[in-house]
C-alpha cells in the first residue's frame, strides 16, 4: 500500500545554484499527485529529493525534512533503503541494455541478493501484468533484450522494474515526454490503475496529462512551490495569479 509524504522546509542546491527554496507540501497516500511548471523550475529536483537520488550528484546538497510513511528519510535511513521503498521512472526509458526482459524486471531483487526462482517468476509476471506489458512480451521473456522493445514498451518495462521491488511510492519524472501519443495514453491508463496500490508523484510538462491522471496538482516556479491544491481547483479557479498565467499559457 502507498504511504503519504510530508515535506517540510526543503531546500536543495546544485553547487551554488539554489534550485529548491522552502518547500512545504503534503502528498496524500494512494493518490496521483502531479507537479507542473516551466522548465528549470525545480520539479525534477524535488522528486529526486524524495528518493535521495539528488545527492548522487557530487555537487548537490539538501536540507529540510522529508517524512515518507512517517520515516524521516534524511535522518533515519540509508539511501539504498529509501530507494527500495520509493521507486522511480525516468524521462527517457532506461532498461539495462545487456539484460533480458526477465532480468530487467528481476534486477532490483536479484541485485539485492534475492534468488528463489519460483518467487522471482511470480513477481516478474505480476509486475509485467501491473505495467500492462505481460501480453506483449510473455513469449520472449528470456530471449529478448530490454533494449529490443519499442520506446513505449521500454518505459512500461521500466515501470515493471520499479514495481518489482514492491515500493510504497512511485516517482515518475516526465514518464511520457519521450513517447508517442498511443504509448502516452497507455502510461496514463497505467497511472490510473496503479494509484490504488501506490502513492504516485508525476512530474509533467503536459497540463492535460496532469488534469487527466492526478487528484492533486502542485505548481512550481523558480524553485518555489506557488500553489498546491486539488487538480480541479488548480485548473479551474487557481488562487494565485502566476498559476493562472501559466495554465492559460501566458508564459512557460
Amino acid at each position: 500500500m502507498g504511504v503519504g509524504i510530508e515535506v517540510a522546509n526543503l531546500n536543495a542546491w546544485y553547487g551554488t545554484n539554489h534550485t529548491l527554496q522552502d518547500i512545504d507540501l503534503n502528498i496524500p497516500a494512494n493518490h496521483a499527485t502531479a507537479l507542473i511548471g516551466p522548465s528549470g523550475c525545480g520539479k525534477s529536483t524535488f522528486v529526486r529529493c524524495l528518493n535521495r537520488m539528488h545527492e548522487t550528484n557530487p555537487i548537490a546538497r539538501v536540507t529540510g525534512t522529508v517524512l515518507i510513511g512517517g520515516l524521516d528519510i534524511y535522518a533515519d535511513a540509508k539511501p539504498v533503503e529509501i530507494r527500495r521503498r520509493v521507486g522511480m521512472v525516468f524521462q527517457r526509458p532506461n532498461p539495462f541494455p545487456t539484460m533480458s526482459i526477465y532480468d530487467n524486471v528481476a534486477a532490483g531483487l536479484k541485485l539485492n541478493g534475492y534468488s528463489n526462482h519460483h518467487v522471482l517468476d511470480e513477481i516478474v509476471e505480476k509486475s509485467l501484468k501491473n505495467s500492462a506489458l505481460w501480453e506483449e512480451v510473455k513469449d520472449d521473456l528470456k530471449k529478448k533484450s530490454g533494449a529490443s522493445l519499442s520506446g513505449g514498451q521500454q518505459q512500461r518495462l521500466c515501470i515493471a522494474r520499479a514495481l518489482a521491488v514492491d515500493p510504497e511510492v512511485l516517482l515518475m519524472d516526465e514518464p511520457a515526454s519521450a513517447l508517442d501519443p498511443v504509448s502516452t495514453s497507455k502510461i496514463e491508463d497505467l497511472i490510473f490503475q496503479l494509484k490504488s496500490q501506490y502513492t504516485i508523484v508525476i512530474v509533467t510538462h503536459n497540463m492535460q496529462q496532469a488534469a487527466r491522471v492526478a487528484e492533486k496538482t502542485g505548481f512550481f516556479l523558480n524553485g518555489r512551490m506557488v500553489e498546491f491544491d486539488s487538480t480541479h481547483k488548480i485548473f479551474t479557479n487557481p488562487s494565485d495569479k502566476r498559476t493562472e498565467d501559466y495554465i492559460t499559457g501566458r508564459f512557460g
Partner: protein
Amino acid sequence: MRDEHQLRAKLRTLADGAATGLAVLATVLVVAPLVAIFVYLVYKGSVSLNWAFFTHNPVPVGEVGGGMANAIVGSAILLGVGSLIGIPIGIAGGIFLAEFGRGTKLANAIRFTADVLNGVPSIVMGIAVYSLVVVPQGHFSAFSGGVALGIMMIPTVCRTTEEMLLMVPHAVREAALALGVPNWRSVLSITVRTASAGIITGCMLAFARVAGETAPLIFTAFGNVGWSEKLSEPIAALPLQIYVYALSPYDEWHRLAWAGALVLIVLIVLAVSLVRYVTSRGVLKGAS
C-alpha cells in the same frame, strides 16, 4: 534554369562518386598490407608445415624434420600466465579509474602511469623483470616470462576498460541506483556488464599484442630447445624460436621460422575468434 539544375545534379553525382571512391581506396590501403603479409606468410610457411611441426620438438642442425611443439605449448603457457596477471589487474584498475577514483589525484596519477607504461619499449620490460624476478630466483623461468607479458598487458586492458565503462550511459547507472542497489553492486553487476563486450575486446587486443612479443622473453623465459611445461624452468616460445631460427645461417631453419610465424598468426586469430564466439553466445536478441 533547367540546364543549370541538371548541371548541379551532375556535379553532385560526381562529388558523391569521388567521395565514395576515396573511401574505398583508403579501405584498400588499410587492408592491403595485412593481406600481403598473410599471403606471403602462407606462401613461405605452408611448405614446411606438416604434422611433425605440431608434434615434434626441434632437432639439431643437419637432421631433417623436427617441429616447434615445445614452443607452441610454451607460448600458450606464457600467455596463460600473462593473462592471469594482466587481465585482472588491468580490469580492476580500469574500474577504479572510471567508477571510484574519477577526478581524484590518485586516478590521474594511475592513468598517467599506465600511459607511460604503454610506451615503455618491450626490451626494457624484459630487463626490468630480469632484475625483479629472474635475479632473485637465480634462474630463467616461464613464470618470469609470464610476468613480463602480464605487465605489458596491464595498460592496454586498464585504459580500454576505463574508456568502455565511461561510455555506459549515465541513465543506466541511475536506473540501478534508483532500485536501491548499492553503488559497488551497481558498478560490478550493471556498469561492467553493460560494457563487457568492449572490455573483452580490449583484453583480446592486449593478448594479441603480447603474443608476438620477443624482446621481453629474451631475459626471462629465455627459450628452451627441449620440452618443458614447468613454470620454474626456462621455456620455449614461438616468437623466440622464430627469432633464433630466422637469424641462423641454415635454410632448413629459415623455412621452419616462416612456418612458425604462420602458426603464430593463425593461433592468435583462432584464440581471439574462440573468445569472441564463446562470449557472444549469451548475447540476447536486440542487445546493444
